[in-house]
C-alpha cells in the first residue's frame, strides 16, 4: 500500500492548458474521490498516476518512489476502466490471470499460484461461477466485477477506478457502491475513484477532491464539503440538492447588517454580518439550502419576488426551480401546493445558516474571528 503525491504538475493539450501547478496528496489506504464536471481534468490526472499520460513538469510520487517516466507496467497500479476494457479473446479466468502472466513478472507466479489467486479474487467478487464464460456473454454488472478483479489480482499498491458504477442501472449501482466500499474496508488498498456524480462521491469517498478546469477547488471529507464549501462552485455542486446561489449586496441599516436580495432587504445574522463587513466587496453570493426558502403567504413584508421555472417531485416532496433575477433558486414544498411554470410567487428567505461567498472570486468569506 502506498500514498500518492502530486507536486506542482503542468499539463497541456495543444493550446489548452489543463494543469498549471496542480498539487494533491492522497494518504496511504485512503479512498479518495476525484469529483468534477467533464473537462475538469480528473480522468487526465488518473491517467497520469497510472502512467498512460505524462505531465510536462512536476512530480508524481507513489509511495516513496518518483514514478515520472516509468511505464505503467512498472508502477504496480491497478486500473478498472470506465467501459471495462476486458480482453475479448479471453475467458473470465483468462482476463483475471492475464496480469499475472506478464513477462515482467515471469518467475514470480507459478501456474498453481496463478490458479489459486484467480479463484480467490473471483470468490471475493462473487464471479467464481463465471470463470469459464466468454466476456461478451456477461452483463454490465458482471463485466464490472471482472474489471475490478483484474485490477486487484496483483495486489497493486494503488487502485484506480474510472467511473466504476456510472453505467450500471440504479439498483445495481447502489449494490456495487456498497460492495466496493466493503471491499476497500477489507483490503485497504489506496484507491482513487473518478466520477462526475456528486452523490456517488459523497457516498463512497473518505476524502473528496473537487476539481474544475484543471484546478483543485476543495479537498475534504464529504460532510466537510457539504457543510463548509470553500467556493461557490463547490456549494452549487455538492449535495442533493446543492445550495442555490443568489447574488446579493451587503448594506448596513441602523447598525445592523442586511442583505439586498433582488430588492428585498433581509436581516443578516450577526456572525454573517461580521464576515460581510470585512469582505473585499459588498457584492456577494448567498448560498441557500432549500430549507431556508419557502413560499411566502400572500405578499408578506420582505418577500422576495421570483418566477417559477419548473417543478417536479423529489421523493415525497415537490421541488420548485425558481428564477430570482439572474439566479436560480431551489425550494421544496409539500405536493399539495400547485404551481405552474411562469407563475410569479413571493419567497420567504431565511438567512440563518446561509453561506456567504465573494461574488467576483467565488471564494467563501472567512469566519469573522
Amino acid at each position, binding site marked *: 500500500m502506498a500514498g500518492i503525491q502530486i507536486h506542482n504538475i503542468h499539463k497541456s493539450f495543444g493550446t489548452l492548458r489543463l494543469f498549471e501547478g496542480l498539487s494533491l496528496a492522497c494518504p496511504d489506504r485512503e479512498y479518495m474521490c476525484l469529483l468534477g464536471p467533464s473537462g475538469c481534468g480528473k480522468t487526465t490526472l488518473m491517467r497520469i498516476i497510472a502512467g498512460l499520460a505524462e505531465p510536462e513538469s512536476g512530480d508524481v510520487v507513489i509511495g516513496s518512489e518518483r514514478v515520472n517516466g516509468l511505464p505503467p507496467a512498472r508502477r504496480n497500479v491497478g486500473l478498472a476502466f470506465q467501459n471495462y476494457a476486458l480482453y475479448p479473446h479471453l475467458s473470465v479466468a483468462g482476463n483475471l490471470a492475464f496480469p499475472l502472466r506478464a513477462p515482467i513478472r515471469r518467475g514470480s507466479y507459478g501456474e498453481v499460484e496463478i490458479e489459486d489467486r484467480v479463484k480467490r479474487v473471483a470468490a471475493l467478487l462473487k464471479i467464481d461461477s463465471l470463470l469459464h464464460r466468454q466476456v461478451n456473454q456477461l452483463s454490465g454488472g458482471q463485466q464490472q466485477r471482472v474489471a475490478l478483479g483484474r485490477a486487484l489480482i496483483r495486489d497493486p499498491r494503488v487502485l484506480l477506478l474510472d467511473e466504476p458504477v456510472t453505467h450500471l442501472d*440504479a439498483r445495481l449501482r447502489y449494490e456495487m457502491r456498497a460492495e466496493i466500499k466493503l471491499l476497500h474496508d477489507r483490503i485497504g488498498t489506496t484507491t482513487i475513484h473518478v466520477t462526475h456524480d456528486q452523490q456517488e462521491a459523497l457516498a463512497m469517498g473518505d476524502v473528496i477532491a473537487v476539481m474544475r478546469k484543471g484546478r483543485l477547488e476543495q479537498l475534504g471529507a464529504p460532510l466537510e464539503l457539504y457543510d463548509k464549501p470553500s467556493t461557490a462552485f463547490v456549494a452549487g455542486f455538492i449535495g442533493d440538492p446543492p445550495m442555490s446561489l443568489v447574488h446579493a449586496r451587503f448594506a448596513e441599516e441602523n447598525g445592523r447588517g442586511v442583505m439586498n436580495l433582488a430588492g428585498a432587504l433581509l436581516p443578516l445574522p450577526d456572525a454573517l454580518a461580521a464576515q460581510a463587513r470585512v469582505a473585499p466587496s459588498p457584492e456577494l453570493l448567498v448560498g441557500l439550502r432549500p430549507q431556508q426558502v419557502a413560499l411566502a403567504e400572500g405578499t408578506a413584508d420582505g418577500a422576495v419576488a421570483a418566477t417559477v421555472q419548473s417543478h417536479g417531485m423529489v*421523493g415525497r416532496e415537490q421541488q420548485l426551480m425558481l428564477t430570482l433575477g439572474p439566479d436560480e433558486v431551489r425550494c421544496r414544498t409539500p405536493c399539495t401546493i400547485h404551481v405552474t411554470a411562469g407563475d410569479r410567487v413571493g419567497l420567504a428567505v431565511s438567512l440563518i445558516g446561509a453561506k456567504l461567498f465573494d461574488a467576483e472570486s467565488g471564494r467563501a468569506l472567512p469566519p469573522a474571528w
Partner: protein
Amino acid sequence: MPRIEFNCICKTYPDGTRAVIDLDLTVADREFLCVLGPSGCGKSSTLRMLAGLEPVTSGDLVVDGKRINDLPPQARDMAMVFENYALYPHLRVFDNIAMPLLARRRPRTEIRERVLQVAETLQITEHLRKRPQALSGGQRQRVALGRAIVRSPKMFLMDEPLGHLEAYLRVQLRAEVRRLHERLGATTVYITHDQEEAEAVSDRIAVMNGGRLQQLGGLIDLLDRPVNRFVAEFIGRLPINVLPAFVGAGGSLRVGETTLPLSPARMARLSASGAGPVTLGIRPEDVSAADADGGQALPGRVVVLEPQGDRTVIIAHTMAGRVSALVPSRLVPSAGAAVELRFAMDRAHVFSADGANLLHGLGGSG
C-alpha cells in the same frame, strides 16, 4: 388537447413475442404520463403503437373518442422524440427544425418565424447554422425537441429522449421538457427506465413489467400504496429494503428474532392470508437507527456509511440481511457500531410469495 385511451391493447410480434398484454390505460387531456419500466417491459412497443409505427394486434386505440388503429403516423398529429435524436445529418439545425413545417408546405415566412421562436425557447439560436455533428449531445437533443414542438402538435411522444446524456444534462433537460409541456399544454407520453426522471417530470406514472401494466398513479400513490413487490422495488430514490419475514398465528409478523408491532387492522389482514413466509418491504426513510433501548427493534451492526448531505444512509448487517436506514447526518453512529433498527410499521408493506402486497389498501399516510 387529446385524451388517449388504450382499451385492452395487445401486441404480439410475428415471431410470437408478446410485448404488450391487455393494456388498459387512459391518458387525460393535457396530462404528462410517464411509462416506466425495465428494458423489455413493453413500454417502447406501447409508444410505437400510439405513434403508428407498429400495428396494434388487438384492442382499440382511441384518441379524443376516435379509433385510430388504422390511421397512418403522419395523420395522427403528434410529434415524436427518439433516444438517438434521429436528426438529419446533411441538414443544418435550422432546416432540421423546419422539416415538419416544410413537409406540410407552410409559407416560408411562417416557417422562418416559427423556427426562430422555437430556437429562442430552447436557447439554441446560436447553433442554427451548424450541422448536427458539430453539436454536443445535449444540444442535439434540444434540436430534436425543437423539431418536435415546431408544429405545436397535440401530442408529444418521447422514447427515452435523455438516455444518452450525462447526469447533470439530464437534470437540466428534463426540467425543460416539463416546461415545454406546460407551456404548450400538449398531452405527453414519456418513456423511461429511470424512476428519478419519471418522478421529476410526470403527473402520473404507469409502471410496466413483462408487457403488463403493474400500477398507474401519481408518485405518492406508488410510493405509499404499491400494489406489488415489483412496483415497490422499482419506485423510490433509495432502494427499498426487502427482508424475509414470517407471518405467525393471528397475523403477527416476525423478522429474524424480532416481532414487529402492527395495528389490529393489519394483523387481521395478515391473519386472513394465512401463516407462512413473506417478504417485508420498508423504505430507508422509514427506518430509524437509535441506540439500544429495548423494545421491538431489529439489532444490527453498521457496516457502511453513505453521506448524502443533511442525511446519511447507513447500511447495517442484521440477522435478516442488509438493511439501509436514512438518518440525519448529525446523528450518525460510527462504522462498526451496534444499532437498533426500528421500522415505521404504518408505512411498511408485506408481500406474499407471488409479490402481491398483502397490506394494499391499508397504505400509510399520504
